[in-house]
């Protein structure tokens, strides 16, 4: 090797200059060892990694914000649907309860989402583009569309408290906004499944076929539970049915995810997410039993307890899946082992 220039090759528009001398050094070519003998005595472990470090970055989202939103957004969408149904079938008390739940949950959803950005004024950047490749962009537009509509619906319920002019305006807007909100609401309950599945997080991406259904079902459980808890027993039958149906479907879909994921389901059964999901199963059972009992005995107390149990089931499911995703991203095993199964063949 000659004494070369201090730096490496220069790449300029007119080509290479001062090509570094060691550029094509034939490492390992000296000496007489036969190729391919190998020196590893210890057999390779089940999987290899760089000092046990994570390959991908776990989500930086705060659980109480984003898992909280997965729950609140679902409850908001589901309650909007129940409000429309209650309106059409002449259940004024249930309608009021559902509209207030939907407006409250939508408002809280926006609050936690904006809080997670760190600086609230940055939220407006979300509205620069409409991007179908980003479920978060589509979701932002869905939620931005839903919030004024459910706000008008909720104001219509409390129009007695508004000044006359405002009450008239809200009254005129109530019907069109109710229709528009009902059209948007179902998508709000399920797109969150696509949102978290559309990442490299092994446990989330692996379950992309089931997550939208699971989150939609869980949203119905939450909305049905909350509306059933907030409505008189005589009117709440549809909320109870929707809540119980959603809860049963969510538990079945949870089992389906476990089967699909195989080894990747480990984070769903271990640690914090395992505890959360086990608790959600208990809440589902308790909620279904209590709501059924409340219907039979016409008991408001049982209805409130059962409804809240179903809402808790939904929240626990969403937090459980959130933490399982984070855990699966933080351990290189869940990235390396499944990819290794279909990785290109290794030379040597």
């Amino acid at each position, binding site marked *: 090797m000659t004494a070369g220039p201090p730096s*490496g090759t220069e790449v300029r528009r007119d080509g290479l200059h001062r090509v570094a001398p060691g550029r094509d050094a034939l490492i390992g070519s000296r000496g007489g060892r036969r190729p391919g003998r190998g020196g590893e005595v210890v057999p390779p472990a089940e999987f290899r990694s760089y000092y046990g470090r994570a390959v991908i970055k776990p989500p930086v989202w705060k659980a109480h914000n984003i898992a909280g939103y997965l729950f609140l957004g679902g409850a908001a969408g589901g309650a909007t649907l129940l409000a429309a149904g209650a309106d059409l079938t002449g259940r004024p008390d249930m309608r009021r309860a559902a509209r207030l739940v939907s407006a409250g949950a939508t408002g809280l959803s926006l609050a936690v989402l904006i809080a997670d950005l760190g600086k609230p004024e940055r939220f407006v*950047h979300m509205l620069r583009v409409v991007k179908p490749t980003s479920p978060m962009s589509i979701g932002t537009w869905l939620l931005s569309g839903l919030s004024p509509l459910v706000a008008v619906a909720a104001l219509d319920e409390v129009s007695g408290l508004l000044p006359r002019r405002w009450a008239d305006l809200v009254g005129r807007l109530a019907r069109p906004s109710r229709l528009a909100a009902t059209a948007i609401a179902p998508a709000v309950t399920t797109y969150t499944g696509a949102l978290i599945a559309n990442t490299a997080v092994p446990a989330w991406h692996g379950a992309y076929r089931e997550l939208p259904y699971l989150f939609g079902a869980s949203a119905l459980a939450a909305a049905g539970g909350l509306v059933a808890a907030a409505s008189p027993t005589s009117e709440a039958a549809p909320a109870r049915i929707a809540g119980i149906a959603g809860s049963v479907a969510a538990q079945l879909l949870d089992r389906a995810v476990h089967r699909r994921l195989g080894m990747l389901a480990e984070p769903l059964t271990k640690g914090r997410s395992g505890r959360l999901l086990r608790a959600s199963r208990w809440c589902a059972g308790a909620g279904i039993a209590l709501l059924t009992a409340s219907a039979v005995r016409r008991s408001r107390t049982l209805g409130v307890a059962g409804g809240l149990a179903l809402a808790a089931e939904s929240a626990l499911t969403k937090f459980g899946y959130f933490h399982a995703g984070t855990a699966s991203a933080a351990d290189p095993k869940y990235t390396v082992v499944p*990819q290794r199964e279909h990785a290109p063949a290794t030379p040597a």
Partner: protein
Amino acid sequence: MTDNLLEGREDPARDSGYPQPPPRMGFFTDTSVCIGCKACEVACKEWNLIPDDGLSLLGMSYDNTGMLGADTWRHVAFIEQDRPLGRQNNAVALMPVGPSSAARNAQVVAAGLGDQHGARLGSETGATRLGPSPDGGPAQPVTADGRTELRWLMASDVCKHCTHAACLDVCPTGSLFRTEFGTVVVQEDICNGCGYCVPACPYGVIDQRKDDGRVWKCTLCYDRLSVGQEPACSKACPTDSIQFGPVDELRERAAHRVEQLHDAGVVEARLYGADPDDGVGGTGAFFLLLDEPEVYGFPPDPVVTTRDLPAMWRHAVIAAVGVAATALAAFAGARR
């Protein structure tokens, strides 16, 4: 516009709407000639004015950087292995305990540190006089002449500038964009800190800066490229382990280099990210590795998550219809 934007072989710049883009630019990182000097890390930090990422001793060989992040756009990995490099017998003679990756070495270091072992970290432990191996013998494994074998893998990691970049696809603000050079860059005045790109990246490259919430990553020195200069890291690399140029040309050169190394007896040499048919459509920054990718902290077979996005949307729409139908059925089934 084509209908396979989310996968397949594409020219990313032309696909993003540049009518006459310059050739796609990228890096070929030939780890076989990397000497672990970290000049790339330093040059990157200096040119891009990246804040410090803490002075920490990680106990991972000479790597105290750890991994790529918001404040680390180049990261040099160090891997010590008990195996020879090609035909070379670079055994460690006269070393009492063998390379630092050997279990024996850990025992001897632990004995030297005494009771303090594990209680204090890094430089706090001060100088330690290592005694001979506990049982007096040399470390295993040994060659016929009683010496241990050792090779040292060093690799400078960087953003891969994927053909199909998940971070860019999922960004809800349009802050991440494709440059005319086919690279992927964050516009810091647009990023709003939503954090979606962080778990979307299959390589764990892009990361959030904790104090401002926005995300940062390698720009392939977009500012330097725009005026015909090469990126700071490749400019600083003294061995040309990091080579910069048009991706087509780099791929040709890399294929030739692998052949050359195979002929030299380094049969484990392989390219990583150079195949345009892989899960991300090939990367703009690709590597020549001397072991499996996961040993360097790379995913063995990364796939851009948005490949499955059409199916996800389909499921989300069907599920939404199902939710609406269930609600409808609940009202139909409820008797007053």
